[in-house]
């Protein structure tokens, strides 16, 4: 079973949200690593090459858009699925997110269960 666990990296500086997502995803058998800092998150993404990444936008040291840009520019990880999870929900932000080819854009406040559904969808898990 363990090999089949999809690996996820969550970059989120808000501890409460991170804990919640961690709790929910672990239940659904995802393998989750959490980072609370943009640069460290990006490093980890490059190192572990996860199946999917959940990104907050407002982050210390490097924001989510920049991380996404870096992911898409790096041939080795450019295919990683990315979900942006953010309270920045003006249309411009949305444009920016999709412009950078985010796979999903989830507004905060969000429903944890819908995050899981979307994650399953982009990872083709039924």
């Amino acid at each position: 079973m363990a090999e089949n666990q999809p690996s996820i990296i969550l970059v989120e500086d808000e501890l409460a949200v991170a804990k919640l997502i961690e709790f929910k995803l672990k239940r659904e058998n995802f393998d989750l690593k959490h980072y609370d800092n943009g640069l460290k998150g990006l490093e980890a993404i490059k190192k572990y090459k996860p199946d999917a990444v959940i990104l907050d936008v407002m982050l210390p040291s490097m924001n989510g858009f920049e991380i996404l840009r870096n992911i898409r520019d790096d041939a080795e990880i450019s295919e990683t699925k990315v979900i942006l999870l953010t309270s920045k929900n003006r249309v411009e932000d949305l444009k920016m997110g999709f412009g950078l080819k985010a796979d999903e854009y989830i507004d905060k406040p969000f429903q944890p269960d819908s995050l899981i559904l979307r994650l399953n969808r982009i990872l083709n898990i039924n």
Partner: protein
Amino acid sequence: MLMQIDLDISLTLLYSSMIFLLFLLALILIVSLYLRWRNQVRESLKAALLEKYYPLIFAFLEDELTLNEISDQFSGRGFEYSVFEKLVKDIIDEVSGDDKQKLRSLLFIDKLFSYHFKQLNGNRTAGLLKACNYFSYTRLINYKVIIRLKELISHKNRLVAYMAVSALMASKSVKNKATGLKKIVSRKKISDMAILELLYEFNNTEKNEKDEEIKHLKEIIEDESVPPDNKSIIILAVEELGYYQLQTYLFKLLYNKSEYWQNSEIKGALVVALGKFGYNEAAPYIRQLVMQDNWSLFKAGVIALSSLAGYENLDFLLSQLSEDLQKNEFILRAVLNSGYSQEEIEALFVEPYSTEYSILMDSILQKPLSI
């Protein structure tokens, strides 16, 4: 001189003060080390509590724990409650849907309520503020809470007063909300931001209680004990919130001759509100006002007329262009702001359109109008 008076006395004095100071120094060092230590204990306690509460809350979300079981985890110390409450609120802020409702119910735990009720009846400012915050957040206000909140509106700390009214706004009765509002707006030094915030809470968008709200708003507007600066922001907010039923009433107030209603701040606010409401009957009166030599009424009048728009009003505004560049800039900005394009305005010019205006116009196009 001092040396000459009596060396011995001054020496004794110095000796004792030095010993005293050394003693004091030692004391302060001990106190600061103690405080630091206490703080660290608190921090680690907090971390331990968080580690305990996270799984509890999540288990509750998955229906594995009941409210009572969670309630049993508290030993009754205030610190526990504030850590728990902060944590729940942090999560609530980030989630929506069913989970949000469920999390909210965590705040309704009896122990939390009675803890805050006790705080609300105490004297500590921080406790009062936290309690007000709790009641406004949970909307758990019974008549006992309401009585105390009403008392707190006269509290000498304005922040407490503001938070108390904010909590009252969670009440289901328009009358309670209005009482709070009335009391606080007649206090001096209440900021525009605070009043706006409260009015937005007063305006209930879910239930239709417009008639009753309007009745109370009228009373507040009528009340001459409300300081003019508070009154003007209320009038402007009434328009922004869309209480259009009040427009005729506001218009009549323009004709009130008493000193209070002739105050240019209040009058300006009335005029702007009427303009933004689109109350055309006021146009002739406002045009008169623009021609008077009062800068703040001029500004209000121009904004009002440009909001009313219509050929007649705009034509009038353009006819007011004069030697005064500051006034001209203001007029042109306002007119442009009302949705007319540069060409349309140029067409309205009676006199030939000079280069001076075109420079002015170019610059104005870049910056939005602000009052």
